[in-house]
């Protein structure tokens, strides 16, 4: 099929092209409690094609993307490509350079044993300890191996095989007739059994704590502490502002060599872009457009050092060696978790949905479970919400020296923010 598409591309009238062939072999298992409800297998192949066309004496470079079915006939392929060439000729983007550097790293060809990967996840989940009051409600396992082959008209060629897995878990905690549910969604490359079981057990503990939670009081002027993957959204706000498209579109006001906040009252954020990250669901060294991903600092000690992103937007910023980035490492701070946790604060471990608007920096989330640490006493709370703007609270950020990985991002284990509003549901005594 690849050769048929390449042959059709040679006569379709485009100026350049990229093809990405992806083959996914996935196994899926759906459990209710500990019994299997359904199982599925996925065996699919896709061909993504991107067409480039120069317009008005190379002043503009248009592009159009599409997907070609592996069962398409030669006539269908030709028709799709012809349509893409026409569409690309209408897209007047200022001209930019397409990747043409030979890939200087070897293909990643270690096969993924989907059967073994599935077994690891099933065994891990079945080893989760349950009690009369804390137990699994249901879980779904998705284990897959993906082989991606990329080629472009400039001679770039690369093949990578990698595992990509997801486990969705719902756990319950019960007290008399009152049952609490906690939802977790884990993505990774392979199965880290110990971490998976530990995270599920933590979710059960949160469920039990919610059974005894009090309504969140209307507290004012205390910090919010995040100790779960919700904190990653705070760091993604910083990361998104080092994205080339965000800069070109004037959403980001970051500038190389300038601090990301006007003044820092707490820790200074350091973010590194990584090509490879063990157990990431995107542990791949080449981006979707055939650029080799280089490890580099995006923000160091609170100062913007590099932008990253697609070929088009990187080119507009004059970045010749840039790429999209699959993995990020947010460095830990100066103080350990125990120091970050001193004084009064509200630790929120469960939101209905924690939302950070990467454009305006607005933060919002309904509190499902929190721990109010005040005067040396800890009260388990639920209800109400937190809200605010990272534009105001980012300068107050403090984070632990210890770090933790959530799939494609490593972040400090705990993150503390000031200047967020806590909307409680009951008046203080």
């Amino acid at each position, binding site marked *: 099929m690849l050769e048929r598409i390449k042959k059709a591309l040679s006569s379709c009238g485009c100026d350049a092209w990229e093809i990405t062939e992806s083959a996914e072999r996935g196994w899926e298992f759906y459990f209710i409690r500990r019994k299997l409800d359904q*199982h599925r297998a996925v065996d699919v192949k896709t061909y993504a094609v991107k067409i480039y066309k120069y317009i008005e004496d190379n002043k503009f470079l248009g592009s159009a993307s599409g997907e070609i079915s592996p069962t398409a006939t030669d006539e269908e392929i030709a028709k799709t490509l012809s349509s893409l060439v026409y569409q690309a000729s209408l897209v007047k983007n200022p001209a930019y350079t397409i990747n043409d550097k030979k890939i200087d790293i070897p293909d990643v060809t270690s096969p993924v044993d989907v059967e073994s990967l599935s077994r690891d996840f099933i065994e891990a989940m079945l080893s989760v300890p349950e009690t009369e009051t804390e137990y699994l409600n249901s879980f779904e396992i998705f284990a897959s191996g993906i082989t991606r082959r990329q080629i472009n008209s400039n001679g770039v060629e690369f093949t990578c095989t990698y595992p990509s897995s997801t486990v969705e878990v719902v756990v319950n905690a019960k007290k008399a007739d009152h049952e609490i549910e906690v939802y977790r969604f884990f993505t990774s490359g392979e199965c880290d059994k110990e971490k998976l079981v530990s995270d599920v057990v933590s979710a059960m503990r949160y469920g039990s704590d919610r059974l005894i939670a009090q309504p969140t009081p209307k507290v004012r002027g205390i910090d919010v502490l995040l100790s779960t993957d919700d904190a990653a959204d705070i760091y993604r706000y910083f990361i998104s502002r080092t994205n080339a498209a965000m800069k070109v579109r004037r959403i980001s006001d970051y500038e190389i060599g300038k601090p990301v906040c006007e003044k820092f009252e707490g820790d200074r954020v350091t973010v590194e872009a990584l090509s490879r990250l063990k157990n990431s669901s995107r542990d791949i060294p080449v981006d979707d457009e055939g650029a080799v991903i280089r490890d580099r600092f995006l923000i160091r000690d609170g100062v913007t050092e590099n932008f990253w992103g697609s070929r088009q937007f990187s080119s507009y910023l004059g970045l010749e060696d840039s790429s999209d980035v699959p993995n990020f490492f947010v460095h830990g701070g100066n103080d350990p978790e125990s120091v970050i946790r001193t004084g009064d604060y509200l630790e929120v471990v469960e939101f209905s949905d924690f939302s950070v608007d990467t454009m305006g920096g607005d933060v919002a989330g309904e509190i499902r479970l929190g721990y109010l640490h005040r005067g040396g006493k800890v009260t388990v709370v639920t209800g109400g919400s937190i809200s605010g703007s990272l534009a105001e609270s980012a300068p107050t950020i403090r984070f632990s020296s210890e770090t933790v990985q959530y799939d494609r991002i490593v972040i400090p284990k705990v993150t503390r923010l000031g200047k967020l509003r806590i909307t409680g549901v009951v008046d203080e005594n």
Partner: protein
Amino acid sequence: MTTERGNVVRVCRDGLYAEYAFNEFDPNDIGSVAEKLKSTLDAQLKTIAACGVQSYKTGILPDEKCELFVEKEAGILPENVDAKELVDKFTGLSDKGMASVEGALDFMLNGTSTHISKMFISPNRFLRQSYVYTEGSFATYAPDKNGELKMVYDGVSGCGGAEILNGLEAAIANAPTVMADMVNSEKIVPGEYDVISSPEVSGLIAHEAFGHGVEMDMFVKGRALGSEYIGKRVGSDLVTMHEGALCDESVTAYAFDDEGNLAGDVIEIDRGILKTGICDALSALRLGVAPTGNGKREKYSHKVYTRMTNTVFDSGDSTLDEMISSIDYGYLLSGMESGMEDPKHWGIQCIIARGYEIKQGKLTGKVVAPIVMTGYVPDLLGSISMASTDRGVYGTGACGKGHKEWVKVADGGPYLKMKARLG
């Protein structure tokens, strides 16, 4: 332009259901596909057995004889769109938007038209359908006085061809006023208020409150409080809510679902009383009820779950002016951003773009943004005291099951007056 083709086969052996999804095969050698399906599913069973896993036994799905061919009308099919005309039109609208919205840094438009052709075959059923849905949206952003970016977003959608995108021009006409409201907005003082939800916010409440809450695959897992409230009051007398692909000619107005069950129109809540939920075929078999035509897949390679289609509150008999006049102090809530449900405990979270202050029965012109609305679903629906005569249905968004399985849905309703906690 993307052409996606694929197949999924569902089989049942010894009461255990399994599926095999594939998209590469030789139609002249179906035997090879069957062999691969069998060997793959057998290998899975071997893994399951090696882990000592037991499985649920489910009966055989009903398979009454049915033949159907539905081809819905569409003005301009995606494959016939004049791309140049569309690009020129969007470029003109973007230029007009940039010129009219003060301080705008960009004005982006998006249009998607999707032609779906599906076939369902079982021993006794042969169903075919072809329909087109189209959605278009614009987004613009501008800095407020503190330099913080504020965004305005709106869109159009429906079951039909690219002609639906013509509606974008009217939607864009409101952008300058709405942006002025957003950049001049203030932070809300948290508290409980009398509020009026605009139709898109009413839709968000419908979706989060008793959309997810009555997906009956959640009943099978014991994950929804709704199962204990069938026949009981969950809202005021003004609350009647429909769910089904037949409820509106929207982005999800199919003729049959992904399990070969015909589309429906279910009254979930009738004048405040919870009547029933929605159900996929396998969950229906487990629960001993009839499927409602709500078995949907994200795509052919994904599993079927019970999913929403159109989730819509019925209209009432008040006018918006009457509703505003009835409020001493509160807000008219407009523009939906996102929501999250909690079917086990009926908590609800809606993030709303802005609120227009109402004082002594009149809009004051003061705007607050953004707003987090939280509460307990029966309290929220129980507080609904007025509903307007008109209503709107919106389908530019998508809905996930948990954090995955994104499908097209639509929701809506009239203006609704209620009490809500805002932060």
